[in-house]
């Protein structure tokens, strides 16, 4: 069970929006996590690797910061999927976001904010297939 929380959702979302705006303002880049991560590990772009690695490291640091100032309780957070499911899900998320040129952040936030038709289509599709997957797992299987 999770309890719906509009305020923390909006505040957290606004922080994400500020981060995306800030990255565009300062270094002119889209805050798409899958693309940034992919270009951190592929050898094609050595020049751009350092800023990407810094962004990737910033993500867990942000979580640490929020926790350190006492705004986050992790005790009720767990990973419900089993080990095998985690592997399959990780593979699909990695492969799918690479084929589809983006994930929830790149398409769902940055792309939609630029009114990109590709991002609108991608976001609609992945929310639909994700909801269908959960429906099958929880209500059919």
């Amino acid at each position, binding site marked *: 069970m999770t*309890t719906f929380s*509009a305020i923390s959702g909006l505040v957290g979302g606004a922080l*994400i*929006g*500020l981060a995306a705006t800030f*990255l*565009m303002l300062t270094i002119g880049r889209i805050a798409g996590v899958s693309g940034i991560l992919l270009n951190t590990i592929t050898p094609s772009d050595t020049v751009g690797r350092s800023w990407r690695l810094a962004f990737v490291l910033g*993500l867990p640091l942000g979580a640490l910061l929020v926790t350190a100032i006492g705004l986050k309780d992790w005790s009720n*957070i767990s990973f419900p999927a089993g080990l095998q499911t985690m592997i399959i899900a990780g593979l699909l998320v990695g492969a799918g976001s690479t084929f589809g040129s983006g994930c*929830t952040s790149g398409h769902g936030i940055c792309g939609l904010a630029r009114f990109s038709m590709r991002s609108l289509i991608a976001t609609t599709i992945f929310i639909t297939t994700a909801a269908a997957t959960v429906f099958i797992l929880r209500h059919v299987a």
Partner: protein
Amino acid sequence: MQIIYSLLAGVLFGAGLTVSDMVNPARVLNFLDVAGNWDPTLIFVMAGGLAITALGYRFVFRRSACLVGDKFNLPTQQRIDLPLVGGAAIFGVGWGLAGICPGPALTDLMTLDPKILLFVAAMLVGMMGVNSWQARAAVTKSLPDHT
């Protein structure tokens, strides 16, 4: 300077995912479970993120350049093609299986939970696999035609 800016952006992004509880797979799965105990929090995260980013981008794009470097790096692809549609569909299935997408996955590394380490490792394998396949396909395509 680039590194400091992007580190700050990453910290802010990770903080947002943490405050909004998007780092909690159960929260995400309960949003995706429209037929169950539906938790609409994710919509508010997207709405907040989208509103600020759309407004912020409008302001940023009035400038002729970003603060560091000369130009804004924006996607130029416009075509709705099979990789986009198929990739998004595959991505969604993975997202629905575990309730984790790339941003929260990396943010959750803070917990050092073996399960999330496994997920991130598998995600990297998926990314690199498709990436090298795409690179090979691009090379084959650019080879001269011998027929």
